[in-house]
């Protein structure tokens, strides 16, 4: 839309267009203000240079109405920019459930992407065009930031928690992907590519990668291997909350807190269960902090999520 502008970067996602329009509007406003200031300085500077014949009589003494005038004018303009900007931000940063959920693990100087089917890739992200993609971002070490300039999207990846990001890529192609938060020596080389493909190509690509176990299936194995199923399984005699259908619901905790069971919550529950004792259950779960890698956590959470789509009766 704005490609007639000089030096304009490519735009390849819905978020990009929204942010472009806002930026161009602000750019126009800024240029107008700048032109006004430059114009005033230049004309006053010329007309009222020392020794010029222009009259200096009747200096404006009362200044407050001018000041009130431009205070309110600038404030109103600012308010418009603020509302518009906030509107787009809330839309861009409130992540709806996507057609496709991809887990991202950042660690010093590489990005790892895990597709729901179990396909993993490093520094390259294949996504289908026209579908809304939801990324769940995790970091293994320091703060990174996933930045895709062509989508005009950026989000910090904070260790110890999950952040989410969503977009709908529009135009197939290869776009640059970068780490925008300084993360160490090779920060500048923590880059990669987002490859947007038409959906059939994407399906073909997934197939070519080989159908392994899906993330949820890997998670199920881990669920058993780590002994989670001993308590949370259907046949367990231990009094532990069932995980079937828990994802996305509101959970009432022992201390009166109510939490939405999203990825962040599940992650915290696994790592630090005592702070998240569910109301009516004994605090018996051992904590797994330091024992599970970010990959393990992602698999477990993918598994717990997958329980939502199964019938409540056929719980594990």
């Amino acid at each position, binding site marked *: 839309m704005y490609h007639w502008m000089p030096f304009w970067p490519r735009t390849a996602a819905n978020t990009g267009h929204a942010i472009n329009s806002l930026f161009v509007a602000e750019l126009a406003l800024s240029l107008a203000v700048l032109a006004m200031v430059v114009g005033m*300085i230049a004309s006053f500077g010329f007309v*009222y240079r020392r020794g010029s014949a222009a009259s200096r009589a009747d200096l404006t003494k009362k200044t407050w109405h001018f000041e009130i005038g431009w205070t309110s004018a600038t404030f109103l303009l600012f308010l418009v920019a603020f509302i518009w900007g906030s509107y787009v*931000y809330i839309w861009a940063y409130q992540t709806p459930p996507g057609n496709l959920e991809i887990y991202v693990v950042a660690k010093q100087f590489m990005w790892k992407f895990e597709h729901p089917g179990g396909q993993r890739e490093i520094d390259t992200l294949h996504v289908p065009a026209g579908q809304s993609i939801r990324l769940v971002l995790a970091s293994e070490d320091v703060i990174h*930031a996933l930045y895709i300039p062509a989508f005009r999207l950026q*989000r910090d990846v904070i*260790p110890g928690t999950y*952040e989410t990001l969503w977009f709908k890529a529009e135009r197939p192609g290869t776009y640059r992907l970068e780490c925008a938060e300084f993360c160490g020596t090779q920060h*500048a080389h923590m880059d990669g590519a987002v490859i947007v493909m038409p959906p059939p190509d994407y399906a073909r690509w997934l197939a070519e990668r080989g159908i392994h176990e899906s993330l949820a299936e890997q998670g199920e194995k881990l669920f058993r291997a780590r002994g989670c199923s001993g308590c949370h399984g259907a046949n367990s005699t231990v009094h532990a909350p069932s995980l079937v259908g828990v994802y996305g619901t509101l959970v009432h905790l022992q201390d009166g807190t109510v939490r939405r069971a999203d990825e962040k919550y599940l992650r915290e529950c696994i790592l630090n269960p005592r702070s998240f004792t569910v109301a009516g259950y004994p605090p018996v779960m051992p904590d797994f902090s330091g024992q599970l890698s970010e990959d393990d956590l992602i698999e477990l959470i993918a598994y717990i999520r997958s329980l939502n789509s199964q019938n409540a009766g056929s719980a594990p």
Partner: protein
Amino acid sequence: MSVEAAQPADFAQPSYLDSGHTIRSWLLTTDHKRIAMMFLASITFWFFIGGMAATLVRLSLATPDGLLQPDIFNRAFTMHGIIMVWLFLIPSIPATLGNFFVPIMIGAHDLAFPRLNLLSLYVFNLSGLVVLYAVLLGGVDTGWYFYTPYSTLYSNSYVFAAAMAIFINGYSSILTGLNFVVTVHKLRAPGMTWSRLPLFVWAIYAVSVVMLLATPALAMDMILLGADRIMGLGMFDPSRGGDPLLWQHMFWFYSHPAVYIMILPGMGVVSEVISCYSRRPIFGYGGMATSMMAIAVLGFFVWAHHMFTAGISIYSAVVFSLMSFVVGVPSAIKVFNWTVSLHKGSIIFDAPMIYAIGFILLFTIGGLTGLMLATLAVDIHVHDTYFVVAHFHYIMVGGAVSAFFAGLHYWWPKITGRLYPEAVARFTALLTFVGFNVTFFPQFVLGYLGMPRRYYAYPPQWQSWNVLSSAGASILAVAYALPLFYLGWSLLYGKRAGPNPWGATGLEWTTPSPPPEHNFAVTPVVTLGPYSYDPEDGSYRTQDGTHYAL
């Protein structure tokens, strides 16, 4: 332009420069003017050290692969940040021009606590030495903002020494701020009411408030960082329950107001200069003073706009964005008031005025791009890119450093008793403006194209912009080095200046150039507000009421 006038005859005291020639009489002085001069020498030294680091950075970025090793590049930009922020910009105007002129402008014989003032100087230089120590050990590679957990757990560099340097440096800021606040409250000459304070004094007062109330939070943050770093505590370590964003909250609680510490004194200087060189009262004195205090206070409500993409809640992001726009309003008032202050003036384009007009233009660009960054959605894209780098350099270098040079030239005759060479100074002022824009404007483009900050290597398609920026930096380097030579030259060979070479109205121009040790033989009595210029006949009145016809 220069007004020839004899030194006041009743004044037999030697100037502050002549009241003792031993090294001891300088190093142990309690005279605010001598301390200001030593601060000036110190920050000039640090400015060139920080400038060397900048040179390394710009040199390295001339090629896509980077000329420097990544580790060295990372250390260079960190050093550039730390030195320029804490060892140059924060004390630049307050500790030199402020130190020198605030007491004189309010008609006081010295600052309220001269020994604390001297202590501030030594604490400041001690912190500088600790920074140098960190550099000599092997440098710091975390960036000047020390984001955890990189700085606490992962960085292989001398974070602790740097953090302690900044902790120590904070005491220098606090001592200076303390002194200014009490001085302005307690030591104003008879008749110097709050509504007669020159805007420069208002600016320094506002800045002191910010220094005093922001710095302690940083100090505590640095203590926690140091404890995490060397004792292995987990205050910011997510694997042990700490929150990495807590560091950012406390850091930006200081470091955003710190931006106002850098720019507010510049606003004060520019107000003085604009009024003097357009020979008319500043437009809207009350609005100017109020807006400076408003910036100082509102500046504390906006810090998390550095964290819009960092995982803060959407609700608080919206609030911080709104406050960031609100703090833009007083800045906008100031730009308009300065501009309109040219209307019906009798404008003289001497070097300080050229710097001041450059300040207005660059500050306007910096401010407008600041609004783009305050706009939440735009920030999603340009956060942590060169767009941000360009924006804050427009404010801090284009703004604050230009204002520093404006003030240095404007008050040079008062400080040294000598006039600087006008023609070469005008040329340097223009060169600064050009060099600055060539250096930093390309970075806006680079940022919007998506080049993140702190990259030692980048894709080749961005090289031309980077080369342009580096070329501009070399122009800028010349423009910043030139004053060192011609101002130094003027110390020995410059024409002697009378007490009031520019025909300005502040109390500082009623005392001889250079001023005697205690500034005034008799405490002046103030009868007028500042800026009593009459553009119609060119006459003016100094604040003690004396009328001069030009």
